[in-house]
């Protein structure tokens, strides 16, 4: 080797030695950076955000699947939902979003226990974390066919309600200790519903009776960022993808609980891309409109339904009319359990309209033999194509 080649080789080695491959990129946060007390508030906000996101994205499709809205656009998954067909491919987004909401809350609680230690139970964010975990499990339980937890095997969908009840119970206890009435009441409302869905109507009525009629606990939406937008408003106000046209709610444009208007081009009602006239829901007027997760009027109807199960149609109508009065509506009368049940099913549809709850109501009523809307339609979301393809326990 000549001196010059040696020099060249040395220069090469020096150049290599000088290059440091370590790069710090801004933006994404490393997982271990979340193991910090100061990260807890944002972690719990994230649980709320993931729940709002999952619910908000599902609202439009859930409404299409359960006769609350009609498809006015050309989107393929939405068209399938509207047709009553849940194709595993189409379910990917909803299944994934709902599972993420559940997982961030449940795994976040595990992380919080580690990070907060003895202060876990007294931390102001802990009851909220339990509450979001409860609602995330309820969202899954009410809409999907089978429970799959963390890549595990398929279980009965009631597993979600069991988990939800347990999480609501913890939220209730810690929030009560901390004098956090808002979270405690929301936990009661949530627990009341999942107790009923597990057949524990007595427990459900006991919880529901403790929720004030005017109480509402909302999933939060905002115009702050696109991710915080209420997607249902995007699909109906910003765009014309879904329409009230063709649903039972289109028959009465004076109903204060299911409001809508029309958009006109000249004198003709504007049509969506698939030709459906656009009757625009106005329950949520902005991208920041909140969506109720639980509320007092829902509790009245839950108690009314419990009464009906005992054939107490008079007691049921009293509770229903109490609910109607809060919306300024005249009382209704029924002279039989069957008539009262028809009113109850309609009232639940109106009170909970576009809140992502209808599919479950229709599904359980079909099972009870009191409603046939879903008779020839798919009843619940199957595990998504992604879950089926990637989860070995489902094969």
């Amino acid at each position, binding site marked *: 080797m000549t001196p010059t080649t040696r020099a060249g080789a040395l220069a090469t080695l020096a150049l290599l030695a000088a290059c440091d491959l370590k790069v710090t990129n801004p933006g994404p946060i*490393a997982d271990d950076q979340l193991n910090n007390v100061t990260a807890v508030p944002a972690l719990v906000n994230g649980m709320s*955000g*993931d729940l709002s996101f999952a619910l908000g994205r599902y609202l439009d499709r859930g409404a299409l699947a359960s006769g609350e809205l009609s498809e006015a656009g050309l989107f393929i998954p939405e068209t399938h939902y509207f047709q009553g067909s849940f194709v595993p491919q189409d379910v990917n987004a909803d299944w994934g979003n709902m599972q*993420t909401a559940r997982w961030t809350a449940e795994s976040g609680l595990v992380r919080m226990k580690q990070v907060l230690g003895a202060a876990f139970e007294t931390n102001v964010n802990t009851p909220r974390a339990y509450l979001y975990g409860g609602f995330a499990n309820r969202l899954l339980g009410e809409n999907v066919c089978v429970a799959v937890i963390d890549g595990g095997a398929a279980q009965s969908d009631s597993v979600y309600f069991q988990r939800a009840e347990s999480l609501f119970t913890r939220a209730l206890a810690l929030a009560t200790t901390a004098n956090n009435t808002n979270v405690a009441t929301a936990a009661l409302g949530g627990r009341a519903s999942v107790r009923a869905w597990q057949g524990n109507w007595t427990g459900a009525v006991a919880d529901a009776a403790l929720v004030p009629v005017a109480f509402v606990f909302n999933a939060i939406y905002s115009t702050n960022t696109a991710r*915080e937008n209420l997607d249902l408003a995007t699909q109906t106000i910003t765009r014309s993808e879904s329409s009230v046209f063709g649903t039972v709610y289109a028959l009465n444009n004076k109903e204060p609980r299911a409001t809508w208007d029309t958009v006109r081009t*000249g004198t003709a009602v504007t049509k969506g891309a698939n030709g459906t006239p656009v009757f625009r829901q106005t329950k949520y007027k902005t991208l920041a409109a909140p969506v109720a997760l639980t509320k007092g009027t829902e509790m009245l109807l839950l108690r009314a339904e419990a009464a009906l199960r005992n054939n107490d149609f008079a007691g049921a109508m009293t509770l229903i009319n109490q609910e109607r009065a809060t919306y300024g509506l005249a009382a209704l009368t029924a002279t039989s359990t069957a008539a009262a049940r028809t009113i109850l099913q309609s009232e639940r549809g109106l009170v909970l309209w576009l809140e992502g709850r209808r599919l479950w109501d229709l599904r359980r009523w079909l099972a009870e033999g009191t409603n046939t809307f879903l008779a020839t339609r798919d009843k619940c979301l199957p595990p998504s194509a992604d879950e089926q393809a*990637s*989860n070995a326990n489902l094969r």
Partner: protein
Amino acid sequence: MLTRSIRLSHCVHLLALLYLAGSVPGALRAQDPPTPMKVMASSKGPQYLPLESVRAGVVRMPAALTRRVTVALDKVPLQRVLMEIATQAGLGLSYGEDLVRAAPMVSVNIAGKSAADALASAVAGTSWAVLVTANGQVSVGPAGAPLVGMIAGQVTDRESGQGLEAAQVTVEGTQLGQATATGGRFTIANVPVGPHRVSVRRIGYEAQTVSVMVTDGATQTINVALGHSAVSLSEVVVTAAGTERAREVGNSISIVDLSKERAPIANTQELLAGRVSGVTVLANSGQAGAGGSIRLRGVNSISQGNSPIIYVDGVRISNAHTPVSVGGHGDISPINDIDMTDVDRIEVVKGPAATTLYGTEASGGVIQIFTKRGHTGGAQATFDVSAGVNNMGHIGVASDSTGMFVNQCSGINTLGDGTRFQDATCPSSGSWLRNGPITRYALGVRGSTEANDYFLSGNFNDEHSVLQVGENKSGGVRGNINVRATPKLTLTLNSSFVKRDVRWYPDGLSSNAFLLNVSRGSGSFFKGAGCTDATAVCVLDDSIFTVTNTTTTNHFITGGTATFTPSEPLSVRLSAGYDYDVADVTDITPFGHLRVPLGSIAETKWDRALITFDVAASFRHALGFLTTNTAVGAQTFDSRLNSTDLSASNFSAPGVPTLTSGALRNIVNVTEQRVINAGMFGQEMIGWRDRLFLTGGVRVDGNSAFGTGFGLQTYPKLSASYVLSDESFWSPRFVETLKLRAAVGESGKAPGAFDAVRTWDPVAAENGQSAFEPSQVGNASLGPERTRETEAGFDASALHGLLTISFSYYSSRTSGALVPVTLPPSLGFGARQLENIGVLQNHGSELSVNAQLLSRRNIDLSAGLQYTRVNSEAGDLGGQTITVDANSLSFVQQGLPAPSYIGDQITNPDAIADPVVAHNMFLGGTFPTSIISPRATLRLWNRVSLDALGEFQRGGHLLNAIGFANEGLFAWQPCFAVQTKLRSFTAGNTAALNDVTALDRGRCAIASSVRSAGFWVEKNDFFKLRSVSVTADLPNRLLGSSKATSITLSGRNLYKSTPYTGTDPESADQGVNTFSRRDYYIFPAPRTFLITVHTSF
């Protein structure tokens, strides 16, 4: 011809010599100085050589210097001693005034020694040196001044005798060299005295090497006539290890020589289409300025892109396109920012067998662009001016007289279901189309000064679309400077800057898009009042053009290379490069827009930088029959990406908005990424008798995106080349040149910046409060995917150079392919995680044939054919089908081409029956499997050239999503007749479908339960006449001072033939960033007519 030395200072010294007049026998008079600069050939005039080289026997010793002399002088001026020796030996002596002024004192005591030895001892220990000529003339000058001469001459075409421009003339073993100027002239100054070998190379010709003896201050004239050869084994190609001779290289490298292209070429992708085998160019968009997809030998990666990496003048630039304009569905390819009038040649290195030394990321191949360098001699300028039009022919099937309501929009038009509509805003011409003007200017100046040569250029291009909006305007400058600092050190600086403003027309799948709205007729999103017929649906499609979709870029590339050749066998190259590309992509929906009355703005601010350091050294050595070339090198690539997406909506008032004009404002996304890749290579080439070459090499790479558990990656390569025709047993009767070659090598592709680590994204929740959401699961053992390729082939020249053939077969396998794996969503992380699990296989062949069909005095006809065959197949993918894009029916599945269309298929297409549908069927591979590009060039009277280039692509498929969507809206004219029959059948006419096939019933279905996009996956085979041109060289007498002028008439895309029923078989609305393709309301590419005047002066 008078050639003048560039090293003026040295010449002046010689000119100022004083001559002893009459005092010495044979001496010249001062009034009659020698004029060494006027020498034209080695036989004329005195040529001074150092005394030392004469004594060493490099040239024959002049008789006078052998004469014995005796001198004994103590402490006298040097000139006194010299005069004594000259007198005794009968030598002619000359020296300068500077010697008289300096008058160095010397002592000499010699007896009976030769005059040469006496002269040597006289100047020994002084700062003076003795020069002698062959006839015994002696000159004395200061020692240490380098002794240099010049080499000048002309390179010509052996057959035509015409001068050859742009031939590379190189003094071997030095950095000295020149490209020949117009007429083939060259002058290389500052050549060290002594014997040299001068090589002359030009693409398309056989190289030649000439020996010359350079003497001080003299000019050696050499005239070289080169013979044609398309297989030039002496040609130099640039590889990662430096320059190598074509005969040494064991893999195929395709070279496109721009000097042979007479028709103007808009950009690199247009140039590569049809000219190089193994290259697939897909246009994607018809928008002026839009970047296409370039693939070399198919696809090697599912997730990491398949764009080749790009080098410009030896410096790597980013291959990342700008962000896609959401409204315009177009992006800008960085490779198109190199102006074609600046380019000298492009080398395409196709597969990993050849790209190993380029390291991680090179598995998609390498495109090397070389821009023009300086000419020898004075400044020479070229000026190109082009003018022309973009013009759109009929759109869609011929039976649709309205051309999807684009060619014809006036009056009342009718959809398939009888819906009548009128466009109140249809232009008075009755068509949305117009001719889009094109203007291009390019000015280039090349020349050289004493130690530099330079190429400076500027260009301006402006091209309009065939619609009311749509424009690609760009301007750029370039400076290439080459500095020969010393005979051993050359510095090169190449810099370019391009500014581009593109205004897109709204295109693709967007509710604002042109073709989407216009082709849907009454289904346009832009409805309103103002139509004359109150019974028709009134549309206002002119409103489409109120949105503004723009991309502006500033692209700056600079690179410097120092090449140091301390001794002939050793060469060290050090390069540094900086590529900086800034883009602003803006979509504005104005206040008062028909669909979004309050308006909105979305803007992406993007910049990308690539910083390169590259050092490489090569050492050549000869040992008897063996030659070796050892190369080592190291590179770092520091890639940075910043991208910020911003949006605002709800403006307060009309006017041109900014991001702060909206009531609602959003920072949508911010990306800041940096990836460093560093590596080194070593390569050893062993040659035997200059005909058999074995090369082995290895590349070692580290990358910041590799997982922590991964470390360095090693990629090996091995190749062999055998010039069989150099063997003595070879009979060159039919085949003069035959080179066999084979190579195997590996390359890879790195994962993205964050793919290896588990991350969370900071987001807002609870109305603007800080929050986290799960982002990336992470995989600490993530590494690059590796592609191993084996290639074999030959290059041959036959029938006295009339026929040249180059053939390659290759087979590649990508293992550990980075596949985006879906983890169970119930595990929480929604994003897919890259895993090294997949296998992709490619094999194919490439054939390039060129033939001189006719060569007479006034007529010259040549033809060429490029053939490419690519078979791509996905191997084991860990048991899963990878969804590339479900809406495009695009999947990667084991055993099928990657990617493939998979979906619903009608199994009884030709039956007169209802369609029988099978689900999840393989419908066809996405990319073409064979490409055939014929070309013919006719030259008449040495003045007029006709050139035609066509391209067949076969084997690909395309989802005609526009047909599928419009059929359902009764806006697909080819379905009108079938749909009428379907309605008639539904109405009770049972015979209505008696002549309607299942395929037509499925494709044109009215019932949504029957419709399926899968029925619309079609073969997109096509033939396109890519370019046709006629060039006339104007006679010199017409031109006055300018040296050469030619006029070219050219046309592009003049003819298209395809069974594809959509608008264009090359359309794709998803740009280059995704793997899948579909034709979804992309407005097709126009045809182009141009007239170009090229002048050099």
